[in-house]
C-alpha cells in the first residue's frame, strides 16, 4: 500500500470502532474496554484485547438519567454508548478513578449498563514513594482478579514480558510518527488524528505493523513546504472530524501534541524487566514514574514548563489548548499554561470543545483569527 492507501486504512478503522469490535468478537476474541491509564499490557498478556473508549461524537439522551449537564461530555457519551448497547459483547470495562468524573461514572455504570461489568482501578496520587508503588500494585492485582473472573482468561506471567515489549515497540512507533508529522506538512490533521484514534481499536501488534509500513512510505516522500503555521496542541481529546477540518482549512500543521488520548498515552515506555524480575513491578513503575499530566498530582506543576519546552522543540508557532468543557483537571492548569506560553513568546489560545458539539462556527472564527496571528 502507498501512503494514501495506508492513511485510508487508518481512517476506516478510526471511524468505525464498532465494526472493529464486532469483528474481533466474531473471531472469538475477548474485548475489554479501557480508558485513560489502564495498564493494557496486563490485559494483553491475558490474551484479551484492550479497546479504548473516550465516548463519541453523539448527542446525549439516555445518560441524562444519570449525569447532570455539568459533567464532561467524555463521561456523558461513554455512558450513553454503554446504555445504547454499542459496547455489547465486551467482557468488562476498566475505569481508573483519576478525576472526580471518572470516580462517578463507575458508580453509574453498575446500574446503567449492568451487562458489562465495571472494574475499578484505584491509583494513588502520591505515587513516587514506595507506599504509592505498593498501592498501585494492589490495584493491578485486583484488576487482574476481576478480569479473570469476567473473561475466564488467566494472566500469563511469562507472556507479560512479551506484552510489555510489544507495547514499548508500539509506543516508539507512535512517537516516531508524531515527529515525522512535524517534518511533513502534507500530513493532514485528520490523517494524524486517525492514526492515534485507530491505535485504540486494534491489537497493538496489528497497529504497529500498519504504522511501520506507513512510516516507511512517508520517509520515501519529499516534505512539502510548510505553511508556516505550526501548532502544538494540548488537551484530553481533539479528534472531532469537524475540528480537524478547521485546522486543515486554515493551514494549521500539528507538529506535536500533549493530548491525553494521543501522545500522553505513548510518551513513556515500561522498563524491560530483567530476568527473574517481576514484570508487574515494572508496570507499576511505569505508572509511578509518569508525570506531566493534568490527572496526576504535580506539586510543582512541571507540566506547564514541559508543554512550553515541547512546543519550542517542535518549533511550533503557536499553542492550542483544546479544553474539553467541564474538565476540571485541565481547567485548573490552563491559566498557568497560557501565562507560561505568553512569557515564552508563544501565542496561545484556549478553545472549548464538547463531544456533542453541533456548531463549530465559533471554533472556526477563533481558529481563523489565530491562524492569521501566527501566520
Amino acid at each position, binding site marked *: 500500500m502507498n501512503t494514501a492507501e495506508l492513511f485510508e486504512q487508518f481512517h476506516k478503522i478510526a471511524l468505525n470502532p464498532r465494526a472493529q469490535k464486532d469483528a474481533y468478537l466474531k473471531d472469538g476474541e475477548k474485548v475489554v474496554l479501557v480508558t485513560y491509564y489502564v495498564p493494557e499490557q496486563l490485559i494483553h498478556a491475558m490474551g484479551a484485547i484492550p479497546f479504548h473508549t473516550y465516548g463519541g461524537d453523539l448527542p446525549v439522551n439516555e445518560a441524562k*438519567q*444519570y*449525569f*447532570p449537564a*455539568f*459533567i464532561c461530555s467524555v463521561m456523558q457519551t461513554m455512558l450513553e454508548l454503554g446504555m445504547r448497547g454499542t459496547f455489547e459483547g465486551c467482557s468488562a470495562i476498566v475505569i481508573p*478513578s*483519576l*478525576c*472526580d*468524573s471518572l*470516580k*462517578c*461514572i*463507575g*458508580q*453509574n455504570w*453498575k*446500574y*446503567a449498563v449492568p451487562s458489562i461489568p465495571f472494574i*475499578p482501578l*484505584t*491509583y*494513588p*496520587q*502520591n505515587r513516587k*514513594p514506595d*507506599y*504509592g508503588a*505498593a*498501592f498501585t500494585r*494492589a*490495584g493491578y492485582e485486583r484488576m487482574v482478579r476481576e478480569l479473570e473472573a469476567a473473561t475466564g482468561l488467566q494472566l500469563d506471567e511469562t507472556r507479560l514480558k512479551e506484552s510489555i515489549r510489544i507495547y514499548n515497540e508500539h509506543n516508539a512507533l507512535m512517537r516516531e510518527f508524531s515527529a515525522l508529522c512535524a517534518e511533513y506538512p502534507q500530513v493532514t490533521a485528520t490523517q494524524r488524528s486517525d492514526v492515534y484514534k485507530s491505535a485504540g481499536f486494534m491489537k497493538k501488534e496489528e497497529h504497529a505493523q500498519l504504522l511501520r509500513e506507513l512510516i516507511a512510505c512517508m520517509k520515501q516522500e519529499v516534505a512539502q513546504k510548510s505553511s508556516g503555521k505550526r501548532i502544538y496542541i494540548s488537551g484530553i481529546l481533539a479528534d472531532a472530524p469537524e475540528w480537524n477540518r478547521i485546522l486543515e482549512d486554515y493551514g494549521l500543521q500539528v507538529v506535536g501534541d500533549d493530548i491525553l488520548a494521543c501522545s500522553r498515552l505513548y510518551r513513556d515506555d515500561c522498563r524491560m524487566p530483567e530476568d527473574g524480575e517481576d514484570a508487574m513491578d515494572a508496570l507499576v513503575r511505569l505508572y509511578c514514574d509518569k508525570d506531566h499530566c*493534568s490527572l496526576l*498530582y*504535580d*506539586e*510543582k*506543576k512541571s507540566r*506547564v514548563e514541559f508543554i512550553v519546552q515541547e512546543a519550542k522543540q517542535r518549533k511550533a508557532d503557536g499553542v492550542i489548548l483544546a*479544553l474539553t*468543557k*467541564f474538565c*476540571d*483537571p485541565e*481547567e*485548573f*492548569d*490552563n*491559566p*498557568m499554561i*497560557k501565562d507560561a506560553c505568553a512569557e515564552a513568546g508563544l501565542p496561545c489560545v*484556549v478553545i472549548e470543545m464538547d463531544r456533542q458539539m453541533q456548531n463549530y462556527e465559533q471554533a472556526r472564527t477563533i481558529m481563523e483569527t489565530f491562524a492569521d496571528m501566527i501566520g
Partner: protein
Amino acid sequence: MAEETKKERRPLDPNSAKYKLNQIAAKAYSDAAEAKARGEMVGWCSSNFPVEIPETLGLYVVYPENQAAAIAARGQGEHMCNISEADGYSNDICAYARISLAYAKVKDSNGGQEMPQPDFLLCCNNICNCMIKWYEDLARQLQIPMFLIDIPFNPDYEVSDAQLAYVRAQFWDVIHRLEAFTGKKWNEEKYKEVMGYSGRSSRAWLRATAKAQYEPSPFNGFDLLNHMAVMVTARGKKEAAEAMELLEKEYEENHQKGESTFRTEEKYRIMFEGIACWPWLRVTATGLKSRGINMVTTIYADAFGFVYDDFDGMVRAYCNVPNAINLEHARDKRVKLATDNHIEGLLVHTNRSCKLWSGFMYEMSRQIGEKVDVPVVSFDGDQADPRNFSEAQYDTRVQGLMEIMEANKEARA
C-alpha cells in the same frame, strides 16, 4: 463543608451553645491571624484533612472552604469569582476554588471573610480531586509547599487493607515532613488528648443530631449547617467538645419543654442532600419554613462522627467521609438517617460546583427514595456562585415536594 456566618438578628445568650460555637469558629480565624502577626507559620487546610495532625503538632490552620462559604453567605461570592475568571479560570470550576484562588491573589474579600495568607498547604482529596488541582495552583501561585494526603475514592464497601496501609503511610509521611518544615514535634500524649476531644465532640454531635428523631424535631436542620464549621475545624479542641455537649443538652431540653429552633409548626420532615446554597441561604430556608417543612437531617449528621480508638481507626474514618465512598455505602448511610429521623421527602441540591457530589446523585437518590418510600425532588444551584440558582425553580420544586408529601399523608390517614 462550611459554615454560616450571617448576621444574628437577636443578641445571643452568651451561655448558649450557638453563641459558644460561633465564638469557636470566629476564634479559629483570630488565633491564626494573631499567630501570623507574631511571625508564626499558618497553613491553609482542606476541610476533611485529618485535623488531628495540625492540632497535635500545634499548627495554626484556617480553612479555605469555610472562608469561601462565609464570603458567599455575605454576598461576595460573585465578586470573587469574577476575579479568578478574569485570570482565565473557567466558571465551571468549583466556586470555592474560584473564590479561594481570587483571595490568594488579591488578599481581600471585600468584607466577606479575611484570613491570613498561608506558609504551607494541607490538602486531602477524600472529598474531591478538584481539591488537588486547586491546591496545586495555590502552591504554584504562592510558591509555598503543599502536603497532600491522597485518600482515593473507594469503589468497595469496606476499606481494604491495601488502602489502609497506603493512607496510614501517608499520614506518617506528612507528619514527619511537617515536623521538618515547621520545627514542631509530634507528641503521642498530645495526640491522645486531641483524639479524646475529637471523640467527645463527635459523639456529642451524633447524639445532638439524632434528637431529630423526636417529632417534632427540637431543632431546625439549618442549625447543623451553621454548627458543622466547628466540627470541621475544631473538633479536637476541648471547647468544641464542651460546646457540642451543651448543644446536645439544649436539644434534649427543647424536646422536654416542647420547644424547637424550628420556630413554626413542623408539618413535614425532610432530608436535605448537598451543600447549602450559601448565597441564597435565607431564600432556601424560608422556602421550606414558610411551608412548615423542617429539614431534620442531612448526611452531615453522620459525616462528622469521627469516633475511633486508635491511629488506624482514625485513618479508616478519613477513608469513609461522604465523598470517598461508593454509591451503596453512601446510600445506606442516608437510608439509615432517613429511617431513623422519619423523613417524608428528600430534597436534593444538584450543585453545579461539585461534580463528585452530584455525579451519581440521580441514581443514588432514586434508590434512597425507593428504599425509604419517600418522594425525591431536586433543584439546581451552587454552593457559592449566586448565578447558578433560580429562586422560581426552587420554589416550584419545593412546592411540588410538599404537595406529594401532603397527598401521601392523606393517603395514609
